């Protein structure tokens, strides 16, 4: 009896919702269900609240307060005038710049070789070169530290750069390989048939096609290097503090609006570079589809 009433009520609700066709939810359209929407909203608040609060409170006119005291740029001015932050930022740019140049060149060659050639034990080589991506950073960090110590090499900007190149090469290779997957090899054949040599074909046909992949790979390598903390932590010596290392030592002391201002600068910089990289990759992807 009760279940019958429930069914009737259900039908009534059913017709009520059917009367408004806009709200009808298809069975697989999970993103339109209220319960899923609530869950999604909760997850995104969880993902974004800490970072948004950090950025917002770098503009807060109070040193240690969780309530809003008014808008100010003071802490940005302070961070900008902080000589050691300045130096750390310069160091980070030097390391990221140099390591990007080398790792983009090497990674692109590796990606091209893996895309183009069949060779014995390729699966193994594939796994080996992607190992820097998968192993926990701390393992690689202490390994680099042990290596430089064993070779009696003084830790400094050079050791940081060398380590950054090692862990960014595989990322560049992945990007280049993905880019080359859309390459039409008959273009190379045509070039050869028309009398161009192997090098001429490479520089005039293959290399220009790689272009967007190279830019995206370089931007990725740059942001990874700029952002890296753990590996840098183990390979930096006194006097070679990078931006994240400096932020870390400031945070260990106290979380101030000044640190938040410095962090916001880093966030804005990496996000901008990443968005540029994604736009370039997206555009080149569309080109591929267009062909």
């Amino acid at each position: 009896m009760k279940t019958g009433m429930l069914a009737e009520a259900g039908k009534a609700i059913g017709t009520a919702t059917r009367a408004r066709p806009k709200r009808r939810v298809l069975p697989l359209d999970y993103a339109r269900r209220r319960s899923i929407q609530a869950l999604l909203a909760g997850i995104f608040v969880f993902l974004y609240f800490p970072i948004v609060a950090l950025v917002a409170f770098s503009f807060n006119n109070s040193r240690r307060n969780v309530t809003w005291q008014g808008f100010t740029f003071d802490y940005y001015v302070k961070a900008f005038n902080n000589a050691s932050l300045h130096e750390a930022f310069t160091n980070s740019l030097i390391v990221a710049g140099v390591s990007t140049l080398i790792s983009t060149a090497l990674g692109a060659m590796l990606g091209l070789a893996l895309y183009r050639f069949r060779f014995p034990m390729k699966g193994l080589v594939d796994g080996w070169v992607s190992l820097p991506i998968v192993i926990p950073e701390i393992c690689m960090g202490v390994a680099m530290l042990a290596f430089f110590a064993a070779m009696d090499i003084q830790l400094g900007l050079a050791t940081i750069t060398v380590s950054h190149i090692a862990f960014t090469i595989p990322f560049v290779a992945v990007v280049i390989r993905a880019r080359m997957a859309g390459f039409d090899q008959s273009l190379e054949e045509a070039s050869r048939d028309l009398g161009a040599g192997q090098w001429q074909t490479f520089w005039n046909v293959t290399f220009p096609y790689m272009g967007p992949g190279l830019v995206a790979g370089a931007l990725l390598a740059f942001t990874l290097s700029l952002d890296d903390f753990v590996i840098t932590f183990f390979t930096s010596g006194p006097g070679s503090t990078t931006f994240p290392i400096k932020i870390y030592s400031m945070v260990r002391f106290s979380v101030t609006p000044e640190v938040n201002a410095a962090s916001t600068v880093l966030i804005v910089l990496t996000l901008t570079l990443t968005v540029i990289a994604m736009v370039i990759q997206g555009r080149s992807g569309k080109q591929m589809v267009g062909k």
Partner: protein
Amino acid sequence: MQDWRKNKLFFAILMAPSAFWLVVFFTIPLAIVWVYSFGGRGPEGQTLIGFSFENYRRAVEWIHLGIIWKSIVIASITTAACLLLGFPLALAIAFAPSRLKNVLLLLVILPFWTNLLIRTYSWIAVLRERGFLNFGLEWLWDRADLLFTFVGMPDLFGEFQPLRLLYNLPAVVIALIHVHLPFMVLPLYATLEKLDRSYLEASLDLGASQWRTLSSVTVPLAMPGIATGVLLTFILSLGSFLAPDLLGGTEGLMIGNLIAHQFGPSRDWAFGSALSFLIMYATFIVLWIRSTVASRSQTGLGI
């Protein structure tokens, strides 16, 4: 694809520089640590080369085993929570209309591109005693207090005591979930996106409920993605260093901190190397499981 023998010179030119770099500045360093892991510590903190399993035996002594066990528990809780949150999220994104899908995907990926250190320490301001969460709770508390005063029960709650939310194990877990959720969502999304929807529709048409369809059709079909996401999240959180370091206090220490300590103040590199290679062995096992799962699911889908 070309056979390397057909164009040896070009192949060598392309492969040699990065192969050289990755051998010298990646493989040899790892090999050194591996060799150290069988060595010992000299009286002045120098590392002695030798061959014994002493360091590995020390790793399973009670005092260290506790930290290793805690790390495994933290990594497991993180992985489970990421799966529980990430699966509905990935499902909603995969089946969303394409415009919304791109927006949602971007929203998941963006935090991923924010600095790990910043994302980790951003939780300090949220969780500390005078932080956002306690502040919000105090606000709610005061409202509730006011309400009860109105109905004639003043001071029922008493003064608000801020909760200790920072420098403990839950703080580490929260930050790790925050950091690793995208690593779970992306592989899940990749498989759910490719999944043949007609199976799900057939299940629903034949009268199975949404839950039944989810448990008997969607989840089994999404198994390769689930395996990738779970293994990736587990390994990455097992090797965490920053979250326990900044948010864990003494209660939330993990293997990563123990390793850093051996290479830092303790100057026992041999023991640190052994601990580091314990994580490496775990990584290799996980990679091996993943490749077997991948090959099995490939044959499985052929039915």
